């Protein structure tokens, strides 16, 4: 029904454009094409048939202490995202989506407090030169003070990301001195029962997607 309404509206718009444009009839084609451009959204979560092994990353956390990812997050539900703090759009949005969803867990009656506390949110920088432990700490404080922020050598981080199918390149300095960095495109959820990375979330995942799925992820179930 909605589609039909759009089509009629588009037709009217096209007609109106043709009338008012007088001679630039080729423009009206654009208006019609735009209306049908929107595609339906799929479910945010992708459950993997073959889970990723947790990367063997030993990095530095926001307190400047060594952080062994496998050791520290063993047996805990863990979400990992690769990004950088000088990123105005996707990185803070992704981390805020997870942080807000986590906050909403407080009201969830199905989970015990211990289960809620077991969740680990790990942000690994793709721009370690600028993202020092303190820079990461300051940024994460504005999102979720309990989130783990990791930095270290770019080569180590890149190699760890690669094992999760995430490809990142080192930050590049442009001619004007500005640094261009890259962020990962996916958040990976690790199963507390197996420590395998078994669910992927793309950039389109919303607060509601994470809110809905976190209880399952915490219990190592399929969302």
């Amino acid at each position: 029904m909605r589609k039909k309404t759009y089509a009629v509206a588009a037709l009217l718009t096209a007609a109106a454009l043709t009338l008012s444009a007088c001679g630039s009839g080729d423009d009206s084609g654009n208006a019609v094409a735009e209306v049908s451009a929107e595609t339906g959204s799929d479910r945010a979560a992708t459950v993997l048939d073959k889970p990723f092994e947790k990367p063997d990353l030993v990095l530095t956390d926001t307190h400047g202490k060594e952080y062994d990812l496998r050791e520290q997050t063993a047996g805990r539900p863990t979400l990992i995202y690769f990004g950088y703090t000088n990123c105005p759009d996707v990185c803070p949005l992704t981390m805020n989506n997870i942080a807000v969803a986590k906050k909403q867990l407080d009201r969830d009656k199905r989970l015990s407090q211990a289960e809620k506390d077991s969740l680990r949110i790990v942000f690994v920088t793709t721009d370690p030169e600028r993202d020092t432990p303190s820079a990461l700490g300051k940024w994460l404080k504005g999102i979720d003070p309990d989130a783990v922020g990791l930095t270290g050598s770019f080569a180590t981080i890149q190699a760890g990301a690669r094992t999760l199918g995430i490809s990142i390149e080192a930050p590049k300095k442009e001619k004007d001195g500005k640094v261009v960095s890259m962020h990962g495109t996916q958040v990976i959820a690790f199963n507390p029962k197996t420590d395998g990375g078994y669910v992927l979330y793309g950039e389109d995942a919303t607060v509601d997607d994470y809110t809905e799925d976190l209880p399952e992820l915490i219990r190592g179930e399929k969302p």
Partner: protein
Amino acid sequence: MTRRTVSAGALVMAAALALAGCGGSDSGESGPELSVGAAYMPQPVSDSMAAGFLVVTNKGGDGDRLTSVTSDVAGEVTLHTTSGQAMSEADGLDVPAGGRLVLESGGDHLMFEKLKRRPKEGDRVSLELHFTKSGPIDVEMPVKSATYRPAASTKSHH
């Protein structure tokens, strides 16, 4: 009699339309005709940088180009394009004739740096958009929650 009146009316209207329509093209002044909508800024994480999104619609028969943006809240506003996982600064962004320039999360966006204060949800940020041909356009950009997403339908509407 009635029928005649109606058809005469229609004829008059058609004539009026034809006149109005062709007056513009005669003088060659179709030009870009810009309007701005769907503006918002997600509440930034810190006081160091923020992103902003909006849609510039061009109903005119001539293309234009967004060349710079100034704001009361930031020492510097830059235009960014996103390709894949990396973003880079742009000198300008085109607003095609009869088309739109869409700045949206995950795509092209405005980047606010050297913030004078940290915008909070519920605030409004003032912007001035500058174009190659059209005069500057003032925009009041509301600050939304950090996780705000415009309704999906805005992408398919004008």
